[in-house]
């Protein structure tokens, strides 16, 4: 848009110059400026690329130095552990269904953590987004406050809250649930408010004229407009949260991750357990990814995404 305005402005200048009788700049000058611009641009891109390559190479070296095992030493060992686990699991393939059944309750717990925290997070995120969008906010002056609120909630990694809450509440699903819900609320609050900004304000005006309260305006005029996008983002978050809840289990917050850490600690001889958990986790993630992407496609159909 700005570029068009500038172009119109330029044209106007040339036109005025033409009316004044002075001549517009000739083709040669235009070409020279263009070539100079291109060269300058190339120089900058080249420099940026150089800086990027330097950062990557030196970053890699630093990371390699500070790692316990080197990259080149470890590279050929990458397959060893999976091969060990898989071969042992293959030897005991008869016991795998039993083991998977044994860990099924943990899997349910992991999914439950993700689902509850997504629902709670989405509800808080919805409120935050409505309160921090211009035109919809109940208290327009407090918009920056709610924005910062969701920024901070989004910035806190789940593990921080989870570890602190595990200390206070003891292990189990609740700390993970609260931690993920807080992060989800912040993340969805931001995404939702981007959607809400594009909501049509006319239905709100219509409802306002009938004397509707803020809550009524939001539920009847705004929600129906933004619901498909909200649900789509929430489903996307659910996918992310399943992964997060598995990872948090690994640091002590119940569910499949916790069982994985325990089974890993036993080492060889119990790899059947680890393999069963790997399969469950992989299957769950792929299943919910597919399910939610199908739903999301249906929801956002015809919206030109």
């Amino acid at each position, binding site marked *: 848009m700005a570029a068009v305005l500038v172009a119109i402005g330029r044209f106007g200048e040339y036109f005025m110059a033409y009316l004044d009788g002075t001549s517009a700049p000739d083709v040669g000058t235009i070409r020279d400026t263009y070539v100079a611009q291109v060269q300058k641009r190339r120089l900058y891109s080249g420099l940026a690329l150089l800086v990027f390559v330097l950062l990557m190479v030196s970053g890699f070296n630093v990371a390699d130095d500070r790692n316990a095992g080197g990259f080149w030493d470890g590279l050929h060992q*990458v397959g060893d552990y999976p091969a060990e686990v898989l071969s042992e699991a293959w030897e005991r393939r008869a016991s795998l269904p039993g083991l998977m059944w044994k860990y099924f309750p943990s899997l349910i717990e992991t999914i439950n953590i993700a689902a509850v925290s997504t*629902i709670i997070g989405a509800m808080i995120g919805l409120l935050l987004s409505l309160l921090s969008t211009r035109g919809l906010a109940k208290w327009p002056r407090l918009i920056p406050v709610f924005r910062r609120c969701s920024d901070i909630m989004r910035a806190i*990694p789940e593990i*921080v809250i989870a570890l602190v809450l595990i200390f206070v*509440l003891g292990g*189990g699903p609740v700390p993970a649930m609260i931690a993920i819900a807080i992060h989800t609320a912040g993340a969805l609050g931001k995404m939702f408010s981007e959607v809400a900004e594009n909501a049509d304000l006319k239905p709100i005006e219509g409802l306002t004229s009938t004397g509707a309260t803020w809550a009524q305006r939001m539920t009847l005029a705004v929600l129906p407009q933004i619901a498909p996008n909200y649900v789509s983002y929430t489903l996307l978050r659910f996918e992310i949260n399943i992964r997060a809840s598995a990872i948090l289990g690994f*640091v002590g917050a119940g569910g499949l991750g916790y069982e994985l850490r325990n089974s890993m600690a036993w080492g060889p001889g119990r790899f059947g357990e680890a393999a069963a958990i790997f399969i469950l986790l992989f299957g769950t993630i792929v299943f919910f*990814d597919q399910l939610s992407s199908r739903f999301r496609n249906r929801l956002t159909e015809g919206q030109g995404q």
Partner: protein
Amino acid sequence: MTTVDISAVKSSAETLIQRKRLMAFGLPAIVLAYFTYIFFAFDIAGLAQRADLDKAITLASDSWSHKVHVTRTNRTGEMTYAFEGERKGEYPEGERPAWVSGTDIIEIDLGDGHIVRLLSENRTEIVVPNFGTITAQAEGRIVTTNLGDDIPDWINASDRRVTVTTDGGRVTMTGTKTEVFNYFAGWELFWFTLESPYYGVGIGKILFGPQIDADRSNIAGAVSDWWNNPMWRHKDIAWAIGETILMAFLGTMGAAMIALPLAFLAAKRFSPFMVIRAATRRLFDFVRGVDALIWTVVLSRAFGPGPLTGALAILVTDTGTFGKIFSEALENVDSKQIEGVASTGAKPLQRYRFGVIPQVVPVLLAQILYFLESNTRSATIIGAITGGGIGLMLTQAIQTQKDWEEVGYYIVLIIVMVMFIDWFSGWLRGRLIGKKG
């Protein structure tokens, strides 16, 4: 003009409204039912018993305050004064806090009239306003007090150990030692530890005052003492944060560099062979589905703990995600530009370079920068698992269960780090592809 069949419209409208009503009441009902199930599945009712409120209070108060331990070893009568009771925070020989006085009888002023006197022969006297004076005598392994049977709840007394917690501080007496904790607000020794010559010197004096340490200039000495502070370990923390950001950076950028060529193979427009397309897509799905957690576990077996393992775990997972997003972006490329470039006689590679890349670069950059921010958070968590970066330091600090002020410090730093990366990636996106909207 035909009349509209009103009854049909009405009935269809009614069914629609019925359905909406069902949704409006059904959805909350389902959510409510689910929450009820969760209430029992997660044993929320039992949470009240498991939750330890004392821990929460300790955590909340310790994260912004510090305590000074005054310890008398009963056998030798030796006195030590130390911040947080740590060796690194000990007062140098012959020095002690200003609120401790006396030589034979050591008097500790805990403020507001709370006074603790360490008398000879391992006797201790605690003056508590509005209560009286508590005296305790340590003999062998037994502690005897003048308290009767009626003991208030802020005193915890047994034969072996007596703990008195007042507003001013806490006194613990056992047969072997008497410890007095005096609490203060703020993070003490955050700048300099006691052995540093700059401890307790104001910023004005450091900047403009006379030289404090003969060997070093004031600013250089102060910066180096702060940087090498053994209590707060600013240098290690800076390295840890650097490691975390490095993991996110290497992982994200490496994934993008690997995913871009693969995405061409997975996009219908650029990859004519169905088999290759399907294989690449399944590969993306696979590495995405295995998830960062399992990759971290597998890779740390091969590479050992450290930032490189974390970076590689992020790299592998995100290669799948980026591959998917990039190939979708490539499918949506406008073919007119490519035709235009082709009409000038461009070869295939040139067609990609000038016809395709300029179209997809904004989408790709936006995604990469968005992932950089989200991966900084992931790197914190992965670091806690593989052992690298600020995530590891945080986990260790929480597991020791006593350095809550350090936990508070790390949490603040992590939030600042993530917000900085968020701001930085937004800024870079603005510079590279223009502002949104």
